[in-house]
């Protein structure tokens, strides 16, 4: 009796590994492609030589200075948004409970804007501000929602309310900024990779490694949380503690990414459901969702830069592309009666 089950399990594992590998390959190919495509074409061979540190006439500047920082930021921010977003969705068992809808991204964004415009801070201090604010908002929403016992629905609604207030704050601070300019405003409202510099990628990478490994170490507990709080508790998961750790790790990751690229619209929200469509119940969604996040940002930024009649920041593209999918998700979830 156990044999067919084990066989099924093995088949599922094979499928899961295959899908993850394909997603990783897809992301890598896109990464290299965005380095070689642009206003002018750079052969992939030259791209690789530049990446290895060789000086290549012409390509060193376009690839090394212009395209590489963008692509690196796209991958790091995309991984962070995808991983943090799906962690929230799994924890709250609702695809719509992603950080961009419940106010965490706008909290981090508001703090970053405040730090830059009002306090004239730069670099790591801005990230620190964003992380603290993102965590504060997350814990506030969490505390308000769970004050009277179970409140996942309430959490989403409270997050929506607080998010609206924060969006107003961002708009106001930006309108007061002395050198007010639309490009800069766009970054903090929808997210953009303009002005990415390789030197600033380190905090992003550090956060991804620290918080990402924290999240991945909780993979099993998160998977069990999908069954419901009571079932997870019966299976030995410390529900409260797991939730708190997931919140800290996911928020930390998303806030630091937001502090460097702005809240790239819908990436945190979209990656999880797409991963769920592909992977299904065969394995953890964390890694596939992270890879999909990076893929989305790479594609969105390329489309925004070169495929449209004028240059749009990546957040506008992902926002406009993500909207129909979001609405489809709501419609489908409503039809099935399974939520939201």
């Amino acid at each position, binding site marked *: 009796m156990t044999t067919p089950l084990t066989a099924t399990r093995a088949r599922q594992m094979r499928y899961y590994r295959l899908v993850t590998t394909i997603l990783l390959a897809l992301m890598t190919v896109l990464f290299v492609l965005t380095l070689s495509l642009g206003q002018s074409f750079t052969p992939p061979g030259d791209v690789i030589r530049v990446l290895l540190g060789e000086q290549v006439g012409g390509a060193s500047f376009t690839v090394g200075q212009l395209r590489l920082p963008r692509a690196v930021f796209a991958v790091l921010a995309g991984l962070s948004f995808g991983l943090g977003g799906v962690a929230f969705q799994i924890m709250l068992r609702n695809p719509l409970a992603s950080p961009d809808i419940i106010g965490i991204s706008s909290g981090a964004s508001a703090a970053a804007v405040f730090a830059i415009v009002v306090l004239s801070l730069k670099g790591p201090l801005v990230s620190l501000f964003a992380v603290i604010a993102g965590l504060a908002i997350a814990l506030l929403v969490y505390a308000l929602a769970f004050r009277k016992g179970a409140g996942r*629905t309430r959490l989403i609604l*409270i997050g*929506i309310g607080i998010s609206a207030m924060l969006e*107003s704050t961002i708009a106001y601070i930006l309108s007061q900024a002395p050198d007010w300019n639309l490009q800069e405003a766009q970054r903090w409202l929808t997210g953009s990779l303009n002005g990415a510099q390789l030197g600033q990628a380190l905090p992003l990478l550090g956060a991804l490694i620290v918080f990402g490994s924290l999240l991945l170490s909780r993979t099993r507990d998160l998977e069990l949380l999908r069954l419901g709080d009571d079932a997870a508790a019966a299976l030995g998961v410390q529900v409260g503690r797991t939730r708190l750790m997931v919140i800290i790790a996911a928020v930390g990751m998303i806030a630091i990414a937001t502090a460097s690229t702005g809240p790239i619209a819908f990436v945190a929200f979209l990656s999880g459901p797409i991963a769920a469509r592909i992977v299904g119940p065969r394995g953890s969604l964390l890694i596939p969702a992270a890879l999909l996040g990076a893929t989305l940002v790479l594609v969105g930024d390329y489309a925004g830069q070169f495929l449209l009649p004028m240059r749009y920041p990546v957040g*506008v593209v*992902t926002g406009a592309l993500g*909207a129909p999918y979001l609405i489809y998700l*709501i419609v489908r979830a*409503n039809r099935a009666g399974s939520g939201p």
Partner: protein
Amino acid sequence: MTAPDLHPPVRRSIAGRSNGLRSLWLAGLVALLAGLGALSVTTGSRDVAWADIVAALAGGRDTIGQAAVALRIPRTLLAMLAGSALGLAGAVMQGVTRNPLADPGILGVNTGASLAVAIGVAWFNIASADAYIWTAIAGAGLTAAFVYTIGSMGRGGATPLKLALAGVATSIAFSSLVTAVVLPRNDIAGGIRSWQMGGVGGATFERILPAMPFLAVGLAIGLLSARRLNSLALGDELAAGLGERVALARAVAALGAILLCGATTAVCGPIGFLGLVVPHLCRLLVGPDYRWLLPFSTLGGACLLLAADIAGRIVARPAELDVGIVTAFIGAPFFVWVVMQQRIREL
């Protein structure tokens, strides 16, 4: 805490209040509005001497002070009109959707109007005030229908959560689209950005006048739908049993709310949360009967928006806070409070 259990008895005792007491409250609100109106004309980011205020009211425009006061008069009028429109629209929407969280901002109706106006300005070069208003109303109406359709699909109909999520999702998407439409047009970007903040500053009679017919029709439809909303509050089946044509009643009342939201948004830009806060506060005063709730929300909305505008002028002196920011800061905590009072069904 036992707040949800305490709620019904409290509400019943208020609803049991006599009509005389309600009339007294109504008179109090009128007096409050008059007082706020006077305050709004006399205070602002510039201190003006009493003599100048009196002279300005008499038509004088000789000193800077008198000119400042003259600017405050249409502003005060617009704040009253917009506030009463949004307060009434919120109450009607809460009745139509039978949803305590219904608000033009939460449901994405304001963003829909914004997108329509942005598209109209960027692609069709609309410039006349009338065209603005028609475009905004069309955008508001389409968005409301869209959000309501999505939010009411599936089991349980339009639950607060489903409606709010559909509204927020639509808002995020439409904001991206507004950016996409506006970004290539540097010439109009600044104007649309500042309009999107939502405010009554810089109002002139010329800007208010074109919206008046729409507001008048909207107010009339809204205020006259009290009996229908009372039937709808009993639930669709009971309302139908009482001889109400449920779909028609919904559509008519919603049309009134959309006219009010669209016209207000066209003139002031999106002002959120007012439509949420005012009806809830008024319900605490007069109970759930829409025959009282609607006029109270109309007056209460005018009072609250005017108060928010005055506060915005005083708090950030010598600059001004746009009233849309002030209402967001009053409204969001209130929204959270409403959510916490509800025993929202877990799905």
